[in-house]
Structure formats: structure tokens, C-alpha cells
């Protein structure tokens, strides 16, 4: 007699007070002071709870967290290659389906969460992520977005903004903007192309209650979900560590980042500013953009403006604020 696989139902919270006090991403890790991804991990771990299994494809949230021969994960966790986070998660989920069915594991299906960076999610790990989404595994894929391959010393990734200086996109005479390419739109890679996916969301470490709820909604939905979390990186973006949350909020205020949910074809938006600030606001606080000219900034502004106004997003677009400051 096969045992039915039961899943967990995670509670949606209303405010900071309801953020669980218990730490599952415990203090004692080698991440930078003020690390956005570390904060992201802490919040996602609280969202997922004790009955979870986390996966860490190679990246900052692997190397910095587990140096050396120790980890800050109070829940079960495994390293994966940067290439195969989605695949290993699929194997774990398949194993638990059969182990529960056969009565070998007596609990509910653990919340299986991949914590991948830019590369592990939509560059070298894209294939495995997409396949996990396609096959319908009941697991969550979280992408912490620090807009670079940070762990190897800040190299460009497909999430690095246009004009973002990295050690592979240094500005110079031949390439004055440093980075010529515009970034991928990660959630849009998932939305619409994977029939088994019902929930895709973007979130930011600047908005922790919203972040926790989106992770929980993703876990609650049957099948695979994808949550893309903006996690500013003081080292890579070159700003003072104390400003991590300020930068996260600025991104939203300037339209560089939009918090939204896509549920079964319907979009809803959170934290939309009444008036968008110019992207220059976001860029001036980070040395990685210092080399850009007005022409470059204008290109960036045009890209962001178009993104905010993208068709299919049924929202009122507030008028964009003045380009030049007073």
C-alpha cells in the first residue's frame, strides 16, 4: 500500500514581528560584512523552516559560507556543482517521492530549495534549472542576484548591468563603457515556457517580509517555483557595507529592480514608486558605474524605461522623474 506524499503548508506573515526568531542560517560564516546574499539566505532559510533540504551550487553562498569544513546551515544541505543545482534538486525530490511512497521516510515532503547565484541559475546552471522547471519537481529554485560572478573575484555574469565594471569588463579606450551587453531577464526565462510552473516572483533583501512570503508561496505551490532575489554586493558593486539595504531600496525606486509576482498567468506588483527616480541615483552610489558618461547613462535609462513599460504588464506607469538632479 503506497503512502501518499504530503507537502507542507507554510504560513504567510503580516509583518516583521511574525518573522521567525529561530535561525536556520546560523551566525558564523565567512561572507563579507554587509553581504546581501547572506541576508537573503537567512531570510529564505527562515521562510523554508526546519523540514527543508537546501542546495548550494558553487558560488559565494557555497565557498564563503562553508570555509572551512564548517557550515552555517542548521537544516540538511549539500554542495552541488555550479552546473547542476537544478539536477541534484530533482534527484533529491525524486528520491523523497519514492522513499515516502515506500514508507521509508515518515515525514512530509521536505521543502527542497536551490540557492543559486547568477551563474548557477541562468548561465552555466541554466540548463539544469530549466529542466527542473520543465519536469515539474516539487521544489523551489531561488536565484540570489548579486549581478556578477562574485565568488571568483567579481566577473561579469548575464545579470551584470550595462556599464557595470567587473574584472572581465573593465572600462578602457576601446570599450569605454566596460560592459556593452544588457542583462538577461531571469524570471522571464522561466515564465511562459514551463507549463509545470505556476509561480514566479522577484523579491529584494530590502523588503524582508515580502521576500519571506514569496518564498513561502513558491514552496506552497505544487510543482517547481522560481524566486529571483535582488541581493546587493558591497564588494562587487563597490559601496560601503552599511548601505546594502539603502542600495536595495534605491534599485526599486529607480526601476532597476521591480518586485512582482506571476501566478498562473497573472502579474501583481509590489512597492511600485509613485514616481520613478532616475537610474543615475542608483548608479552614483556605486563605484562600478563611475566611469560612465552621460551617453552611457542615457542608454541605461532608456533600457530601464522600456522595461518598466513592457507590454503585458497591466499597471499604471507613473511618470518618470527628471533626468538631471536639481
Amino acid at each position: 500500500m503506497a503512502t501518499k506524499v504530503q507537502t507542507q503548508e507554510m504560513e504567510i506573515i503580516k509583518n516583521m514581528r511574525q518573522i521567525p526568531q529561530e535561525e536556520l542560517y546560523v551566525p558564523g560564516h565567512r561572507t563579507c560584512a554587509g553581504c546581501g546574499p547572506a541576508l537573503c539566505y537567512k531570510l529564505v532559510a527562515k521562510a523554508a523552516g526546519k523540514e527543508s533540504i537546501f542546495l548550494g551550487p558553487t558560488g559565494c553562498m557555497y565557498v564563503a559560507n562553508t570555509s572551512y569544513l564548517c557550515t552555517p546551515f542548521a537544516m540538511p544541505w549539500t554542495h552541488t556543482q555550479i552546473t547542476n543545482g537544478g539536477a541534484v534538486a530533482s534527484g533529491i525530490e525524486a528520491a523523497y517521492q519514492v522513499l515516502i511512497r515506500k514508507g521509508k521516510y515518515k515525514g512530509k515532503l521536505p521543502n527542497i530549495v536551490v540557492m543559486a547565484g547568477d551563474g548557477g541559475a541562468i548561465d552555466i546552471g541554466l540548463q539544469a534549472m530549466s529542466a527542473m522547471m520543465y519536469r515539474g519537481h516539487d521544489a523551489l529554485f531561488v536565484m540570489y542576484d548579486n549581478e556578477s560572478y562574485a565568488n571568483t573575484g567579481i566577473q561579469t555574469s548575464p545579470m551584470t548591468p550595462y556599464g557595470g565594471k567587473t574584472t572581465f569588463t573593465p572600462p578602457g579606450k576601446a570599450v569605454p563603457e566596460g560592459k556593452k551587453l544588457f542583462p538577461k531577464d531571469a524570471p522571464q526565462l522561466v515564465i511562459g515556457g514551463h507549463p509545470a510552473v505556476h509561480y514566479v516572483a522577484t523579491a529584494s533583501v530590502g523588503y524582508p517580509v515580502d521576500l519571506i512570503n514569496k518564498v513561502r508561496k513558491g514552496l506552497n505551490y505544487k510543482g517547481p517555483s522560481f524566486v529571483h532575489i535582488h541581493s546587493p554586493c558591497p564588494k562587487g558593486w563597490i559601496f560601503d557595507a552599511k548601505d546594502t539595504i539603502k542600495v536595495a531600496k534605491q534599485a526599486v525606486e529607480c526601476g532597476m529592480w521591480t518586485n512582482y509576482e506571476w501566478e498562473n498567468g497573472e502579474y501583481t506588483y509590489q512597492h511600485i514608486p509613485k514616481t520613478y527616480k532616475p537610474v543615475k541615483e542608483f548608479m552614483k552610489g556605486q563605484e562600478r558605474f563611475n566611469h560612465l558618461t552621460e551617453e552611457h547613462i542615457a542608454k541605461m535609462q532608456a533600457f530601464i524605461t522600456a522595461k518598466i513599460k513592457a507590454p503585458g504588464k497591466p499597471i499604471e506607469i507613473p511618470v518618470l522623474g527628471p533626468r538631471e538632479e536639481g
Partner: protein
Amino acid sequence: MSKKYNENFNIPKHLEVPMGAVIPAPVKEQPAMKTGNWRTERPVIDHEKCTLCLNCFAYCPDSSWHLDEKGERMVWNPIYCKGCRVCVEVCPADALRNENEMDFKGGMARLDKPY
């Protein structure tokens, strides 16, 4: 023909790795990576001003702020705080300020052998 394999190994304790590099999970903290000695400044709280908004608790990447057991006061953990100063920035009540770590008797910089 003799076998010629040594099967007696002496692996020094500090280099030992558990089988398959699988280690037990930590419970409340990871003492093998104490990072309190990174900071040059530490956050100091004025409990009178604090509104218990829990911003410092939510935004600290190193979970150095928690509500005490009674739920009445914020408690700071000196062992892991890296002195990033995010908490001071996000406090809406101006209840947190940065102080030089050297000013504290038990300050990390003053310890003969910090960890």
C-alpha cells in the same frame, strides 16, 4: 608475492575530514567561524529610543540582533558581528550608533588572542 600496501595511516587531527566530507549540521551557531574579530566598530543600542521595530533583527546578515526571551529588549551577539553597520543605517528610531571597538574592555581588537 607480497602485498606492498600500507594500511596503517596516521592522519593528523587538524587535517581529518569526515567520510565523504559529510559533516553534522550546526545547531544555533557555527563556532568554527567566529567573525567578531573582523569589526573595528560595534553597534550600541539606546533601549529608551528603541521601538522594537525589529529592523536590526531582520536586516542583519549575521543574525547578531535578537529579541530577548521576554520579547522586551534587543540583545546583541558580539561573537559574530562583523561591524557592517547595516543595523545602524536601518534603525528608524535613531536608537543605534557606532562606537569604536577599541573603546571596549572586552573589545575584539584588545584581546591578546581573539579566538
